[in-house]
């Protein structure tokens, strides 16, 4: 079966949303930073238990004028990835409100939490504790990733895909 689903990435400015997509879709990483203007859309097909799932990935701009209209960009999304930057804790405390916003426009749609840039931290991190400190409600899967090394990026999308298709 061929299934298409829209998913959204949410998170503050420069947490690595675009990098996460680039790593996942093209397996590349770049240190340079380009602001996403408005929305950027990419697509990636993954295989899941014999079915082909095509993800239409909406990358939303961070904290610019688009914030106001972001709600309408979330419409019809089957899932979301909430991204925070481990090296800037304020980006992680932004996640709960982003989750509320998403839940409001897509009640019941699953989401996963990503704490990105593990490569910038000297030591290990406890994802659950970080999550609690940021005030993120329990329940959603939490991933520690690095777009630079590629660590865990694939599992984020696989896990969301599984949640979306209910398997």
């Amino acid at each position, binding site marked *: 079966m061929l299934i298409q689903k*829209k998913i959204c990435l949410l998170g503050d400015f420069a947490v690595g949303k675009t990098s996460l997509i680039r790593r996942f879709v093209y397996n590349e990483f770049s240190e340079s930073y380009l602001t996403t203007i*408005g929305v950027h859309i990419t*697509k990636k097909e993954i295989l899941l238990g014999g079915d082909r799932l095509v993800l239409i990935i909406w990358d939303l701009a961070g904290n610019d004028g688009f914030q*106001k209209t972001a709600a*309408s960009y979330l419409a019809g999304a089957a899932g979301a990835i909430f991204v925070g930057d481990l090296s800037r804790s304020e980006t992680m405390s932004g996640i709960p409100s982003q989750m509320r916003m998403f839940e409001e426009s897509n009640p019941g749609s699953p989401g996963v939490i990503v704490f990105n840039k593990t490569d910038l931290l000297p030591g290990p991190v406890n994802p659950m504790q970080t999550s609690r400190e940021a005030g993120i409600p329990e329940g959603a899967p939490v991933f520690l990733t690095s777009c630079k090394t590629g660590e865990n990026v694939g599992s984020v999308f696989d896990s969301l895909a599984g949640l979306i298709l209910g398997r």
Partner: protein
Amino acid sequence: MRKEIDIRALKRIDELDNPYLRHFVRRHNLDDREALALGVLMEQTDHMRLAIRTSYSMIARDVGVSTSEAYRLVQALHRRRILESRTDGELIRIAFYPIKETVDEIRLAYKNARRLDVVEGDLRTIKGRDYLPRADLFDDIYPLMGSLIARKMSEALRSLAHYIDKRLEAATSLRLWRYRVRSRISGVPAGELMLRDTLPFIVEELFIIEKKSGILMAHHSRKAEGEVDRDLVSGMLTAIRDFVKTSFKKKREDEVDEIAYGEARILIRAEPYFYAAFVVTGNPDIEFNLEMDRFALELHRANRSLVRSFNGDMDSLEPLRAPVRGFVERFSTLPSEEREGGASLRSLKRAGAVVAVLLICLLGLAIYHSWNDARIRKLTIARLAGTLPVHMYDVELKVGRGVVTATGMASSEDIVRRLGDALASTPGVKGVDNRVLVVDIERISRFRGEMETIRKRMDAVLLAQTREELEKIVIRFPINVAELGKEQDFLVKRIYEIIRHHPAAHLDVVAFADKTGSFEINKSLAERRVAAVRAGLIARGIEPSRVHPFPFDPALIESDPRMAAHLDERGIMIFARMAEEE
């Protein structure tokens, strides 16, 4: 090795939402490479927040230039005091100077926001009334949307336009030598010329897009699909539509949109669960509007439960495909009679002499018909004018072989009927094809009127702001000098920056002088200063007809409170006004 500069990277920077970069580029008149290098360094320093250690060869790699060029670029930025570069062992250390000033763009954005505030109320009132939100509405509102969305939109559509252009190139046909000759001359592919000649418009593609998610449910394209991914185009269109909708708080579900780009247009018809986007080149007639309405509505009716419960399963959408393809084919292929007509004419030619006679007869017939048709057309127009009040319809009549085809709009069913009757009863008319649509003409013109009012009000607000800003600037001159020095030139540039966003404003350039010196000398100096400032503005690109030199008049200056404060100075002020305020 030296790489060519990456133009795309440059364009990306230009399109970046980075007001500081644009500010620097403009302020320091940076060339493309300097701008690119600056952009790269800004990114690497996390928007000028961090100091970084790097090397010329790394910068060279990121910017795409040679190492020696990288050195030149960094030095250029250093010299202009945008950043500071210091050698640090093998590496260089780069840090940006903190930025003090508010950026022009930020001011401009703020200004635009204020403009929108002023008219938002009006827009809402208009929206509240039950206007027909047709293509007209979109066209009228479009200029009010920020330039950001316009840019975004063209970005998304450029790739599609490019793709269509490429496809047109491929559409040549050997048989059509006649078109090939014209094609040589005009540069447009031959097959395309023929198609365009024969059909007034062509449906290039049709997208059926799920309203909420932007997922492409069905799609057909006149020719094989190319490299641009239609799933992404579909998402982009949805994003653009959503942006427009939320920005203007459109409430109505049945809105009809149109997006123009290059030679093609995207016409949008929305249904409850999906919308249909028709990519059309040429000039679709009014009839086609109806065709689109019918098609979209029918597609919705026939597949309502299917589209409502769509959950991403693409196989379930099979029933949409045939009608979508059918529609595109119907409006992108030559009608069969025309193709056959061509063939029969060719066989006639082979028949030799008989044909010549026949052709002359045909020609005579054709002349008779066209003469007769022209006569009938005149008669029907006269008859219409005699029977119906002219403000109730706006129609076009075409006559072919005595049959009148009427297209256009009328204000009610009754008028449409009476119009048809009037046509049918005109002497010589053999048949009437009445395609006139009922449209509330009055409502549309009222709407247009209100949009016009809004536009005027926005202009007035902007003018007031422009004025306010201009009045803060006084271009002062040293004694006995009438040429623009560095300082004066800088202010002229400031003024240019202020008014270039307001193309409708006219400027009065007024000079004043201190009280020392004779009137004659002061007058001559003042007028030369006015001329110099005017020339400076014109040199920067302001149309000469918008810059009005004011004759030197001390009495006027003394009586104007805006200049009273500068009575004892030598300088120039500039006042903006609308052209009508002469």
